């Protein structure tokens, strides 16, 4: 019988292993997606001979959490009876537990007493996987076959032997082989680091003790989460989020969710969600469930996240819908488009019984990709600019939007603009918050981010692949009476007679000097704006986040004087006239 303290020490060791795997990956990978943006994740898993369980995961992109679990489960099922020490397995197929083709999961089984028991696993976004068009999303895709080279579980190493022909096949299907190879090697290296740490913990405590501790880790998270669920009032709570477009022929694609709390059990039912679409926004279960779990973990920041945590949650995903499509529906953008909507719908539902814990948990991206030839090195480059989308954080109860991404995705970082300018023939002309774009609320959202960028020093035109998600139609929602965010938009050839707003998607060439402008709106506010502390509004005015006009119209706070100060009398008048409820 292992004592609780030892169990906790082992649990923490496992968390540290996951963190170390992640750090190793981030520090050895070649692509900015990994080493700058950190669009990757790592986890430690356990296999009981049938089911894969998550023991610990790194602070990382949560959309990878569950997909890592379901992908690894597919690997174990596929290779059952044919797993050996020294195997390294890779998988990318969305329809085998994944998310979209560019997200690769790698795992390496660690054996004890002849059986695969633990494994480190890494997951990350590969920039280009040989789709008909460069980058990670093909606007012309109506089938997953048009989204790149994908594969079900595939051994990269077999019994420790490197399978060179498999490696060559993978490299043959990317436009960026040197980056791809570097990233794959980084993943292999990080799995090896994970393996060696796992061997250390087993060596130190003994196999039987670690197994017992793992069971305890799961049970404890399950118990604590069930306690939390019991504290929530029984009932069914609904949420809904709408995506502007499927980038094909559909508009207003809805995700509906009903969360039923009963005792210490939860059921999450997505019935009523839009049928799957031709456009590339179909969320396979690996993706859908990641967002479901993300919403609950966001409500319980103190409970360790592992498979025990997931036990009380049952899900109902309607087959053939955007949250559980049938192949060969394309899934390229679903990690964000529909993914974020699943997250939003979930948190809207949960806000109904725990409003003080709710806030924007989703991404709200204006992605854009660009590709062309870098004249300095004469090589073909593809880039995704996360600088175009850093501000989806909304308010939470007690905190204004803190200026970056929503908490659940804040593990992803922006690549520094200096790095981008060094690596690619691009230059940034603007990158700043804008006034009067933060969603009003008792606590306000983050202001929208305005960015201008232009090709610079490029040999020829640079193809720009711009996707507007969460445009003006359905911006990120507010909570408990807070307002919605401003939504996103982009303008290409900004400042010229040819300027055009991007409607959904734009694929075109920009040459030296052509400017793309984009606004990335922030997340929603929390609580009625009329309840915001006037001193905070004053600070907003002084920081040029809110104008005096907006202070009055949105918040009912009158700021006057050359040195700004709150006119308390008039503020109280306006607010009284407005009433306490919005």
């Amino acid at each position, binding site marked *: 019988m292992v004592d609780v303290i030892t169990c906790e020490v082992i649990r923490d060791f496992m968390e540290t292993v996951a963190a170390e795997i992640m750090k190793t990956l981030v520090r050895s990978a070649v692509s900015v997606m990994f080493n700058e943006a950190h669009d990757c994740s790592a986890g430690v898993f356990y296999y009981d001979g049938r089911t894969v369980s998550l023991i610990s995961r790194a602070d990382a992109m949560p959309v990878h959490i569950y997909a890592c679990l379901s992908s690894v489960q597919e690997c174990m099922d596929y*290779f059952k009876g044919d797993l050996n020490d020294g195997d390294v397995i890779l998988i990318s197929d969305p329809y085998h537990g994944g998310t979209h083709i560019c997200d690769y999961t790698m795992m390496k089984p660690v054996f004890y007493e002849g059986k695969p028991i633990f494994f480190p696993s890494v997951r990350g976004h590969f920039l280009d996987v*040989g789709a*008909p068009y460069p980058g990670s999303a093909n606007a012309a895709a109506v089938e997953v*076959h*048009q989204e790149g080279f994908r*594969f079900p579980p595939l051994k990269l190493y077999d019994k420790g032997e490197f*399978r060179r022909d498999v490696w060559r096949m993978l490299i043959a*299907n990317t*436009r960026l082989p040197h980056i791809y190879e570097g990233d794959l090697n980084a993943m292999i290296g990080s799995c090896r680091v994970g393996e060696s740490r796992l061997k250390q913990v087993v060596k130190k405590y003994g196999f039987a003790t670690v197994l017992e501790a793992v069971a305890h880790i799961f049970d404890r998270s399950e118990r604590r989460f069930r306690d939390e669920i019991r504290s929530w009032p029984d009932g069914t709570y609904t949420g809904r989020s709408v995506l502007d477009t499927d980038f094909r022929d559909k508009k207003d694609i809805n995700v509906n969710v009903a969360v039923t709390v009963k005792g210490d059990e939860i059921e999450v039912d997505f019935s009523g969600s839009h049928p799957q679409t031709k456009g590339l926004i179909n969320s396979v279960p690996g993706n859908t469930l990641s967002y479901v779990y993300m919403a609950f973990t966001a409500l319980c920041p103190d409970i360790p996240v592992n498979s025990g945590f997931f036990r009380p949650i049952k899900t109902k995903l309607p087959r053939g819908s955007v949250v559980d499509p049938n192949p060969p529906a394309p899934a390229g953008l679903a990690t964000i488009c529909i993914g974020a909507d699943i997250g939003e719908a979930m948190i809207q539902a949960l806000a109904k019984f725990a409003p003080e814990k709710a806030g924007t948990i989703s991404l709200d991206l204006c992605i854009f990709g660009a590709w062309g030839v870098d004249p300095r090195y004469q090589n073909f480059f593809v880039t995704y600019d996360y600088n175009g989308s850093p501000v989806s954080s909304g308010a939470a109860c007690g905190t204004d939007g803190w200026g970056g991404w929503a908490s659940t995705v804040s593990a992803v970082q922006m690549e520094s603009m200096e790095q981008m300018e060094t690596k690619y023939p691009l230059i940034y002309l603007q990158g700043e918050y804008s006034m009067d774009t933060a969603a009003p609320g008792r606590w306000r959202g983050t202001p929208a981010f305005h960015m201008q960028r232009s090709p610079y020093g490029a040999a020829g035109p640079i193809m720009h692949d711009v996707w507007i998600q969460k445009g003006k139609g359905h911006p990120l929602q507010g909570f408990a009476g807070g307002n919605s965010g401003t939504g996103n938009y982009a303008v290409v050839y900004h400042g010229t007679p040819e300027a055009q707003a991007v409607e959904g998607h734009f694929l075109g060439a920009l040459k030296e000097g052509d400017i793309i402008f984009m606004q990335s709106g922030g997340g929603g506010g929390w609580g009625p704006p009329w309840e915001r502390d006037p001193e905070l509004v004053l600070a907003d005015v002084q920081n040029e986040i809110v104008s005096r006009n907006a202070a009055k119209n949105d918040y009912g706070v009158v700021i006057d004087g050359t040195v700004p100060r709150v006119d308390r009398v008039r503020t109280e008048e306006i607010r009284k006239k407005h009433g306490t409820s919005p």
Partner: protein
Amino acid sequence: MDPVLGQLVQSQLLATIDDMGQVLARSAVSREIVEEKDFAVAIVLDRGEVVALDNLLHLGTVADSASRIQELFEFAMKPGDVIFSNDPYSGGSQIQDFTVLAPFYHGREQICYLVCRAHLPDLGGQIPGGYFPFADDVWAEGSRIPPLKIVQEGKIVRDKLDAVVINSRYPDAFMVNLRAMLAALEIGQRRMGSMIRKYGKSQIEQGMRYCIASAEAQLASEIGRWPTGTYEGVSYIDHDVKGGSALQVNVCVRLASGILTLDFRGSSPQSPGFVNSTRSNTLGYALVPLYAAMGGSVPVNSGVLKHIELLTKEGSIVHPVFPAAVGWGPYHPGAEIVSAVSLALSSMLPGSVTNLSTKSLMIVARWPQQHLSYPLHAFLQAGASAAQGSDGWGSPGPFARGTTPSIEMIESHLPVRLRQLEFAEDSAGHGRWRGGFGNVVEFEFTSPCTVDVVVEGEAHPVEPHAKGKAGAGAKVELDGKPVKHVSWNQVPASRGLLAQAGGGAGWGDPRERDMAAIQGDIDIGLLSPEVAGTVYNARQSASARSTVKV
């Protein structure tokens, strides 16, 4: 080696690959293999040296892809292994064509390799089937599989094969065809095994070397009788599918010091679209007119390459650089490569060879709701060109292995009806001997569909020589209006699409054509009296249904 024994072994080797081809054609399910016979079977030695091959078009690709496979698996090949590759940039041609190779052993000794190369249905890419006119690079055409070992010592490597097959839109058909290829290789293993038991290993090895040496000697002997000097041939492609202007394949054929040089360096730069032929593909196509000129006795194997030099410029349409799209290479500039060499050789050796080329169109109908698609261009048959002494006739090269599909079969499982399928009047190229007629086909769709069309051979039909005239160009019309060169057309039900294949080129002066032959053409309704009058100077006499010279 005793030539009689050498010939015996050679015949047996040819019979072996013939058997392999039969097994493949009869067990596969795809039209390309079963009807078009778009495949090749070969016995190959180290470094891609081809001993016997049934399809000259694939001499370059079989040799080069086999060689690449051997290179990458030099120290990692065992009995029972099978390796395949579709990569155009590992000695291949288009993504759909897979080379499958198995080593043949006698005991522990490696004797030779059995190779099968065939068109498999779809491996991803933007368009089902892989022919994507708007492709900017090879990745848009499908997934590249460089040499990959899929059978290890007799056992299928499940995860590697699944990783490939999952990328096909038709995984079941892909697997059936692949198994047919593996079966063909297996038959080859058995035949080679019997041969070794019958003749002994040493005789077989000598026999294989004999095949190669004999081809080399025969080619040397043939070209030894040819004139020295440089002879040029040029053939044109109407457009580069991306809105650019005409492209040309230019070849200078030069015989000097016993080496026949095929110099393609005057050809156009590579196209931004899929009208590019890999160098390996170029070689096979360039040799077709050469073999025709030599009269058919020279065996098809690498022996001939010892006296042939292929010169190409990297970055041209006959030798594109990675990662150019190459999907239509076997058709265009494939046809133009055959044409250009035909023209050069017919200048070099007047009367010995005609233009063996025909220009293909692409007309693919798709019914997405029903998950159906069909290449309607399979019904088009262009006219073969005339030769000295003979009107153009029969199934035209270089795709003459194929058969026309069955109208009844198509009508029974596709929402399309054929309203017309016959030779087109006045389509033959005029000459003392006229070209073959192109056919005209009219399709009526009983269900709405899209039809992807790429028209080539309209402005530049197959080029004639020796004072003959070119045949009519190809054309495609939708509802009576010509279709754009590269277009995706939405076609409602009950509409008609008319397509006409180009006519073969004529040979010699039309005014020297035999009267009876002209009358014959008029009688069968394929030569109009007007054209007979203007081109052939023949006029129908008022009294009888006979023509007289004016």
